[in-house]
């Protein structure tokens, strides 16, 4: 028989604490996952912003250890990049993807893709876009309805971002041809 005064109870974890901790852990998990993108530094946009002028397409040099500007930048791809800022005016983008393997993408400041087009077999894919600043959206049955000017509208979630054209390298002998093709791409603010 236990005497009340002699009962040396060890500290114990209450089931309610465990349940609350699991719930709090789940909340922390969700918050941490959503926060990671905002806590990280040295992202692609941040790095390229320091190197590139605004609203101009630039062909990056062949990727090597010394010229790499992004993490996991594929060395067998050639890049043309435009750092755009659509806060003042919409951006007119023109590019051509001559064959399959070529890709055109518009990225937000956190690197997320906003718009992606892939090159096709045996025919060039012509791209003519109007990147619309946040809040400036045309009303119509289709968000990307073609205007009479022939530009497809792409509403942007953020005013700033990157346009990237990737061209698969076929070897050093083709560098000049690829560069010439990439250099044809343009990205300019729309003048009203």
């Amino acid at each position, binding site marked *: 028989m236990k005497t009340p005064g002699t009962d040396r109870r060890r500290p114990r974890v209450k089931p309610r604490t465990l349940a609350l*901790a699991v719930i709090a852990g789940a909340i922390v998990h969700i918050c941490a996952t959503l926060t990671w993108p905002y806590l990280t530094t040295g992202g*692609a946009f941040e790095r390229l912003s320091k190197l590139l002028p605004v609203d101009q397409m630039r062909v990056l040099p062949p990727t*090597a250890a010394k010229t790499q500007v992004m993490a996991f930048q*594929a060395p067998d791809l050639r890049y043309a990049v435009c750092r755009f800022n659509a806060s003042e005016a919409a951006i007119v983008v023109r590019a051509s993807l001559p064959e399959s393997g070529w890709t055109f993408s518009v990225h937000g400041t956190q690197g997320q893709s906003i718009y992606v087009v*892939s090159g096709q077999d045996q025919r060039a894919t012509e791209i003519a876009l109007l990147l619309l600043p946040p809040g400036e959206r045309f009303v119509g049955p289709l968000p990307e309805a073609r205007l009479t000017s022939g530009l497809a509208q792409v509403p942007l979630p953020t005013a700033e971002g990157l346009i990237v054209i990737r061209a698969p390298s076929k070897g050093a002998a083709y560098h000049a041809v690829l560069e010439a093709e990439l250099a044809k791409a343009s990205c300019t603010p729309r003048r009203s």
Partner: protein
Amino acid sequence: MSTAGLDGPRPQTQPRLIAIRAILTGIADSILNLCVFLAIALIGGIWSSWIMVERGSSLFTSTSGAWVLWTGAGRPDADPYTRAHFARQGSLPLGSTAMHVWNARADDDGQRLHSSCEYALEGDGLNAEWWSLAVFDERGSLIVNAAERHAYNSRTVALGPDGGYIVTLARDARPGNWLPTGGAGRLVLQLSRPAPRPNARAEEAQAALRGLPTIRRIACR
């Protein structure tokens, strides 16, 4: 002989001791519960998030041997783990509808890829129009080497008589398709190839998920 003087204080002291012990036990209880709460809530919550963001899970990645593909990479509607993964990585992921970018951080036996070891990557030429196989260090930087060789692609790799290829990852020069790893430490392999066309048949799409090179460890120093 009377013992009243010796026994007298006990009845008064004992309740006090019991009360103090109860208070101390209560404090210990509270501290223990607080520690458990914080450990599970903070450490558990952050650690589990970190693991999911770094390694992914079958919910939003596809795996083939040691190769991992983040299926939502670069998509505007990507899940938060995929977004966090690529934001942390500092790369610009292409939509998985345009390019499939597979990463491998371990060999086929699950051992972490490391520059102190030599590996043989064997493939069958990959049934794709263009592909590229590159090696990076853990942070996604290309590895400095005198040969300035960082990748092979479908047009630069030397194929064997059977149409397959072997790429050797090693610190020192090797005959054939050699990718130098220098003293980079932990390695990451990246295999890029165009995604199957949207109208591709199911078996073509499945075939695109297979046929990735095997990663066999040859030796370690």
